[in-house]
């Protein structure tokens, strides 16, 4: 993580706010999120479903439709370019070429009536203006690199003819096609079996290192974070609650929510212990609690937490936490 700091910054996001107006009220999906991603770095964005992590990642690529979404952002800089100033046409030039996205469910994320090869060809044809033959050659090479056996034959297969892991690899190949500067992977392994998950993650990490790409890994799975990420942002109810290098986060989580998330990961060594979970549920995005959004579920909550929203405060090098009573080593019962 220290070496990443001297590198150029790939993504700089400041104060992103996304709101969806509905008949029942405003859904405040994202409330002032800051993100920094540096060259060759893998950053994880962690949170439960409904915490706004997918919306954040789509807002970065400017893929959210507006309307319905209302989007405000102070800074959205990608590789030194101000994305907020670009037209949709200019964004299209960047998408798929300089920043790409990998989605969760490869079955629904691939067009069912088009061969997978053709869907990858499209990227080359769009961004490099390749001929059909040239694009297909690159596609086959790409599929081979990503670990698909018999790539030439597989390119002519339709998505439903491939296995789940294979389909996910196709999405990887698609994202890495133009060697983009940034890849956003939105729950890339959630739909897969655990064994396949490990393989796909390994491929993803390997490709990322090999291509010199930065990676924003959006996930709810802390074990994926531990094995893959360099730095972690923890998101809760539309806000970043903790930001830390991965090692520090796992040795000493500061936010009670992070602690709860970690305690909820089942471990083989804890077989006798009861499975723990965070009490309560994620607040409704329309009707969020006063003060700190986490206080109704927090065992350490005080009167102040009920009234006031804490700020993200620095806690040591490269760490920030949004809590009045951050936990330190030894107090959380983990280390």
């Amino acid at each position, binding site marked *: 993580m220290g070496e990443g700091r001297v590198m150029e910054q790939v993504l700089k996001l400041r104060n992103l706010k996304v709101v969806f107006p509905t008949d029942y009220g405003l859904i405040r999906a994202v409330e002032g999120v800051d993100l920094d991603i540096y060259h060759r770095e893998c950053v994880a964005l962690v949170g439960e479903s409904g915490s706004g992590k997918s919306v954040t990642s*789509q807002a970065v*690529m400017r*893929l959210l439709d507006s309307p319905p979404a209302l989007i405000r952002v102070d800074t959205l800089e990608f590789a030194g370019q101000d994305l907020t100033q670009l037209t*949709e046409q200019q*964004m*299209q*030039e*960047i*998408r*798929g*070429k300089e920043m*790409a*996205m990998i*989605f969760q*469910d490869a079955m*629904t*994320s*691939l*067009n*069912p*009536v*088009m061969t997978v090869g053709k869907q990858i060809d*499209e*990227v080359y044809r*769009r*961004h490099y203006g390749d001929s059909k033959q040239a694009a297909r050659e690159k596609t086959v090479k790409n599929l081979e690199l990503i670990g698909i056996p018999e790539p030439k034959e597989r390119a002519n297969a*339709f998505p*439903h*003819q491939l296995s789940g892991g294979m389909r996910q690899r196709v*999405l990887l190949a*698609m994202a890495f096609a133009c060697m983009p500067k940034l890849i956003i992977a939105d729950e890339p392994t959630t739909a897969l079996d655990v064994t396949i998950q490990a393989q796909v993650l390994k491929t993803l990490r390997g490709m990322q290192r090999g291509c010199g790409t930065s990676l924003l890994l959006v996930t709810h799975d802390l074990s994926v974070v531990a094995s893959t990420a360099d730095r972690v942002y923890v998101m809760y109810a539309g806000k970043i609650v903790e930001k830390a290098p991965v090692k520090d986060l796992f040795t000493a989580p500061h936010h009670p929510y992070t602690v709860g998330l970690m305690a909820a990961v089942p471990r083989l060594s804890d077989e006798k212990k009861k499975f723990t979970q965070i009490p309560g549920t994620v607040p409704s995005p329309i009707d969020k609690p006063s003060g700190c959004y986490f206080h109704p579920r927090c065992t350490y909550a005080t009167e102040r937490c009920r009234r006031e929203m804490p700020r993200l405060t620095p806690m040591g090098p490269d760490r920030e936490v949004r809590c009045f009573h951050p936990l330190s080593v030894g107090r959380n019962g983990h280390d």
Partner: protein
Amino acid sequence: MKLSYVIKRVLYSLFVFAVVITLNFFIPRIGVADPAERYYPPQGNMSDIEYEIVKQLTREQYGFHVSTWQQYLNYLKGLARGDLGTSFRPGSPKVMDLITERLPWTLVLSVSTMLIGLIVGVLFGVVAAVKRGRWQDTLLLNASTVMVALPSFFIALILSFYLGFEWEIFPAYTDSTMVSEFAWTWEGISRVARNAALPVMSMMVGSIISYAQGTRNAVIAVTNEDFVLTARAKGLKTSTIRYKHILRNSLLPIVTSLGMSISGLIGGQVVIEQVFNWQGMGTLFLEANQTNDYPLMMGIMLLLSGFTIFAILVTDLIYVLLDPRVTVGDKR
């Protein structure tokens, strides 16, 4: 895999057709004991013996003098030769000739209605889907609500009253010499077009709106699919996404409804033909019905069901071409 699917579908269709032929033969015979007696009641001062002779001659002429089973075999033999039987009409015309004489005129109406409905409807549907929630979309929604309550014969009455009688733009009633005087000249074709205008207009409103509604819903459903987001994330142009990804997937339900309506091309406009006195299959069927001309009814029914089976077969086969997921026993 695909070839075996095609063969399977064709065999299945043939089987259904065989069942239809059999039912088509036996059902009319359940209600009528001796057609000769029914259709040739005694006339004038015919003696009993004379009447028996007439009946016997009639039976022989139409092939009723043998057992039902034998009649069935004869019917099948006739079908194999393309002979649908002989009508009870005066002059004993062949059923086949009656049908081939009327069928083109029905197709003039139904095919043009379908083509206009399909082309204009799909176009409207795509526009409404793209402009979702704006006035184009609202217009379609309201129009389709109104159409549910407006049957085509009602539209036909209004059109024939205003455009036909009041303003005399198009003939309100098909002129009786149109068919007999038809020739492949500019004159003849434009005459048919003028006469067909009102019936086609009456039917096309509903056709356009139902295709538009179907297309709109299909396009919107596909637009919300994940793979469209993937396509956008690849940086594809909006037009590429719309035509290569969305429209192709939206075609599947459209093809289905097209296949359904193809079967209605022959017999689906009995009422409209009647309103405008259009000499097509619908009027022929009504005539056959009114005169108890059951060889003719059987012939028309057979053609209808055969055509329906064929349309469903073609729809299924087109599906295989459009959607690679459709194969024998393949589950997602």
